[in-house]
């Protein structure tokens, strides 16, 4: 399964919130990524909310170059529930990262980190960092899916619901719900391209 087909699978779901575990189970059931591990971690200066680390372990079989893939999803154990939901799904969706967007060398780590921290430090475009930035909106496309989003956007436009009420309902951060209701229809097709 690709990212685009995952989005299509959830697009028609109108019973919300979508449980995070349902998304994780869907990824494990339909991709080669069978080992997704969630780690709640302690944070001290709130430098990041979450992280994704994909590791390849040699199987140890003689004359074999086979590896077992493990994907670790770290998230702040102190985060509010709505942030945990968004962070975990955003990080889990990195299993779909194309080869060219993977950060797998020390040099790429040195380039990625300054661009994660603050837009002020964004220098020459670095594709994996751009992909990391867009990842949160890829998660919104799954957790606030198309059909329901369309109905809720209409309710906001009609003044019968506020983005904050919708954020409470879908258990996602206000900030991203507001953006996704406003921009999702236009942004989603761009996020699905090539995925």
């Amino acid at each position, binding site marked *: 399964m690709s990212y685009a087909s995952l989005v299509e699978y959830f697009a028609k779901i109108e019973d919300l919130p979508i449980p995070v575990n349902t998304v994780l189970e869907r990824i494990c059931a339909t991709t080669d990524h069978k080992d997704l591990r969630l780690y709640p971690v302690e944070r001290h200066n709130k430098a990041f909310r979450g992280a994704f680390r994909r590791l390849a372990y040699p199987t140890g079989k003689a004359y074999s170059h086979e590896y077992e893939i493990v994907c670790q999803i770290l998230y702040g154990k102190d985060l509010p529930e709505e942030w945990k939901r968004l*962070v975990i799904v955003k*990080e889990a969706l*990195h299993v779909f990262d194309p080869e060219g967007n993977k950060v797998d060398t020390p040099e790429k780590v040195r380039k990625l980190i300054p661009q994660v921290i603050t837009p002020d430090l964004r220098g020459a475009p670095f594709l994996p960092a751009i*992909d990391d930035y867009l990842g949160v909106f890829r998660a919104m496309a799954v957790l606030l899916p198309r059909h329901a989003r369309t109905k809720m956007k209409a309710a906001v436009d009609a003044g019968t619901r506020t983005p904050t009420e919708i954020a409470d309902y879908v258990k996602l951060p206000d900030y991203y719900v507001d953006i996704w209701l406003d921009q999702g229809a236009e942004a989603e097709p761009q996020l699905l391209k090539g995925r």
Partner: protein
Amino acid sequence: MREMEQLIDLLFPKEGPRLEDLKFFEGERPVKIEDFCAEAHAAFVQVDSGRAKPVAGLDEACTPVHVDKFLKSS
């Protein structure tokens, strides 16, 4: 920068698993690169040392309600 190199040493050990991808979700406030690297290093140490235990899934109080029902209740 010492913190960055410590993080890189942890992520690319001479023996053991190979790093295939790494990504982050930005934090609540801007920090210096060295503070970010120190926090990331501390988090991965929690995982690698076994101090942070993997959980089976997110324990969330989640009772889905149909969007039409939610919108009608306004």
